[in-house]
Each structure stands twice: as structure tokens, then as C-alpha cells.
């Protein structure tokens, strides 16, 4: 068991030491009186693949949504590639980031959503060139060529002129991955990307992510309920409980020999159910 995990982990580019790609520093998020994240500290190294697991309501999706700037934080600072994301430095002091700062820093991050969120009025290709053309200012021909390569990588080159409504859930999610990659993010976030899929197509999406993990230099944060998959591709697994990281470590240790009582309860519950 342990051997298999080590072999798989070795296939992926190893995380680089030094400055973290993503850093949460005492980040707190509240909805009214409800504390969703409680002074969270989390460093993610370049090229590291981190899986976030935990019961619903434990704040795991919120971590990704704050990093994607879909939600504002209440306290603390998030850094991306050494620069503050949620704040900016003005005269030696940190102040809240403005839209311009957010847009510049956001370019480092991409996200794949649980419900795909493809643009229904555009073809698969159209979805993949929209942002490169209109945000990066890439010439259309170049954007199309890159999009074709990416769609080929996710195995959907033959579907590139189809609208999302003509694609299965698994195909839509693969287009969504290609769309996110088209922006060349340094960090890619996966928010329960297989939760809305029929069981028989989950595998095709996981295969794409597995290829990404092993063949590309990309920092990945993944909220998932696929314990087997998290175990297989992650360098580190974080177990969230009530807005905090209750336990974290290499997948072999966290799944094989969990130290925290909550982790044990959670794992036995989901592994029994699965």
C-alpha cells in the first residue's frame, strides 16, 4: 500500500522548497456570527498538490473561494507567489486590495467548479478562447490553436464545436479544465469537481487531473470527496474540521495512521459509505 503511494507521488513533479506559492496567514472568514475559517495558516509549495477533505461545513470550499477572490476575508492575509493577494502594500503598510490589484494577482489562479459553469452560449472552443482573447489580449488564431491543443489533451478535440448542452457532464468538466488551463495559471483550484457527475464518468475527469498532476508543473489545491484519488495524487492531505486544519500530512500517513480522533471518525464514515 505505502509502496504504491510512494511510486505515484514520485511520478509527479516534486514540490519545490523555498517561498510558498500560496500562503494563508491567520485568515478568518465569518458569515455573521458563524466562523467558517478560524485563523487559518496554510502554506502550499510550488508544484505541490494538496487535497482538502473534511465534513461539509468545515470551511474547505471557502478556502478555494477566498483564494479565487470570490469571497472576501474578514481577517488575516493571503499571499500568492510571495505577493499579498487580499491586500496591497502602500508606504510599508498593508491595505485592502483594490480591483486593479485583484485582477493582476488573480491572473495567477484558475478554478474548476463543481457545476462546471461553462458559458452555455459558446462552443467548447469558444469557452476556451474567451478569456485568452479578451483578458490576455492573445491574437485569436493563437488562442484557437492553444485551445485546440488543450481540448486534445482532455480528449475532446472532436467536440470542440459543440455547445455545452450537447456534452455529457464529464465532457463539460473536461472542457472546464481546458478553459482554466488556457489562462496558464500557476495555481489551479478544483472545487469538488466530480461531485455533480454520474459515477461512470468520474474516471475520465480524474484521468485528466492525474495527467495534469504528473506531467505539468502546476500547484493544485483540491477539495474532494474522492478519498482514493486524493490518496493517490496528493503530496499532502489536509483534514478540515470546524474551520481549522485538524490534521495534515502525506496521504500515506493521514489515511494510514490518522492521529486525530475527528479524522479517524470522518475517514471511517466516508470509507464505509464509499
Amino acid at each position, binding site marked *: 500500500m505505502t509502496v504504491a503511494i510512494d511510486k505515484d507521488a514520485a511520478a509527479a513533479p516534486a514540490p519545490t522548497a523555498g517561498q510558498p506559492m500560496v500562503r494563508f496567514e491567520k485568515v478568518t472568514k465569518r458569515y455573521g456570527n458563524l466562523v467558517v475559517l478560524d485563523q487559518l495558516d496554510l502554506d502550499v509549495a510550488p508544484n505541490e498538490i494538496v487535497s482538502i477533505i473534511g465534513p461539509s461545513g468545515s470551511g474547505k470550499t471557502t478556502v478555494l473561494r477566498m483564494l479565487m477572490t470570490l469571497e472576501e476575508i474578514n481577517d488575516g492575509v493571503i499571499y500568492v507567489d510571495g505577493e499579498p493577494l487580499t491586500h496591497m502594500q502602500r508606504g510599508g503598510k498593508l491595505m485592502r486590495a483594490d480591483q486593479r490589484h485583484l485582477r493582476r494577482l488573480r491572473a495567477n489562479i484558475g478554478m474548476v467548479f463543481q457545476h462546471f459553469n461553462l458559458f452555455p452560449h459558446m462552443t467548447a472552443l469558444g469557452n476556451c478562447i474567451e478569456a485568452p482573447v479578451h483578458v490576455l489580449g492573445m491574437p485569436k488564431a493563437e488562442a484557437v490553436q492553444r485551445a485546440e491543443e488543450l481540448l486534445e489533451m482532455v480528449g475532446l478535440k472532436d467536440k470542440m464545436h459543440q*455547445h455545452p448542452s450537447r456534452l455529457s457532464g464529464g465532457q463539460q468538466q473536461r472542457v472546464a479544465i481546458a478553459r482554466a488551463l488556457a489562462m496558464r495559471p500557476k495555481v489551479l483550484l478544483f472545487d469538488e469537481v466530480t461531485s455533480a457527475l454520474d459515477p461512470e464518468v468520474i474516471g475520465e475527469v480524474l484521468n485528466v487531473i492525474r495527467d495534469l498532476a504528473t506531467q505539468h508543473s502546476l500547484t493544485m489545491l483540491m477539495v474532494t470527496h474522492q478519498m482514493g484519488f486524493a490518496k493517490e495524487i496528493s503530496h499532502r492531505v489536509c483534514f478540515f474540521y470546524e474551520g481549522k486544519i485538524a490534521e495534515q500530512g502525506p496521504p500515506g500517513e493521514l489515511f494510514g495512521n490518522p492521529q486525530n480522533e475527528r479524522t479517524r471518525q470522518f475517514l471511517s464514515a466516508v470509507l464505509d459509505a464509499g
Partner: protein
Amino acid sequence: MAFHWRWDFTWDILPQLAMGALNTLLAAVLGYLIAMVIGLGFALLQRTGIWTLNRLVREVVEFIRSTPLVLQIFFVFYVGPQFGLTLMPWTAGMIAIGLHYASYLSEVYRGALDAIPRGQWEACRALNLSPQRTYAGVILPQAVPAALPGMGNYLIGIFKDTPMLSVIGVAELMHTANAIGGNNYRYLEPYTLVGLIFLLISLPAAFGIRRFESWVRRALGMGRGH
């Protein structure tokens, strides 16, 4: 008094009524164009996130929707001059009917925009699209098909409301028919013709609008079935 339809009179007044009908169409189309633009402004201003602005526009829209169009027409035309705003009947009429329907259309737009799933906005954010591109490239193209049925209803609606412009002397179809009736002491033929002309324009327009809706859906690749 017996029912007595005079065909010679009918043919005599038809050219005049046709001219009136053209003015009616012009008023409806112009008024609708004004309403479409201002209505979009009303709808977008309510989404700025600036609380006081949202509230202000909301109240203006509610006020306009809750008072009669004919009163608004009178108000712009007859009360305007007291505030130094003297307008031609056409101008006053277009402002009044344009604003009135702008408030209706803004509600149609608002509903269509609210119907866009939150995930679409989030995908735009995640792809770093500018707010302008988010609206132009992603949100509005999806909102348009949702807005079309409501917009079509109000296009027919504004067309049928143009006779109210006759009260300030805009020479549209109703005004022409009134004048003919008054001059000849015969109202049966002009008013019947007015009804027929409205029917002849409304029915094909409603059909055309439905065809246009399904064409737009197909063009945007959102067709149901085929």
C-alpha cells in the same frame, strides 16, 4: 338607428388613416427604442452595489409603473412649460411613453439578469474577465433570450398605448380617426378601421416576435430540441 356602413366614405378616409398608422408605428418604434436603452440603464443602475443609488432608481421605477401613462403624458406636456420645459407634442410624448415603458422593460431585464446562475458570474471572475466583458460577452447574451418574451409583450403593449398620445395632439392613428369623425359626424367607419388596423399589425407582430425568439435561441446555441 339602423346599422349603416358607407363604403365610399371608408375608401375616402383610408389614405388619411394609413398616414396615421405610419405615425403610430413610428411612435411605437421610437418610444420602444428609447425605453430599451433607458430601461437597460435603470436595470444596470440597480446592480451597482451602491445602496442609495439602487434604492433611488428602484423608487423611480416603482413610481412610474404605479401611475397612469396618460397622466405622465399630460404632465410632461402641460406641466413641463411651468418649469421652463416647453416641448413639441411628439417630443413630450416620446419622453413620457419612453420613460413609462423603460420602467417596465427594466423589470424584464432585471428578472432576466437575476435568472443568470451565480456560477456564471463566478466563472467570469475566475477567468479574470473585466466587468464590461462579463456583461457584454457572457451575461447579456444569456439574459437576452430570457428577456425576449417579456420584451415582445411590451412591444405590442407600447403599440397599443400610442393612442394615448392623441390627448396632446400627436397625429397618430387615433388622433386622425377622431379628427375624421369630428369633421364628418361619422365615427363608425374611422373607429372600426382603427381597430382593424391595430389588429392587422398586432397579430403578425406577435407571430413574428415568437419566431424571432426561437431564432435567437438557436443562434445562441441554446435551442431546446432543435
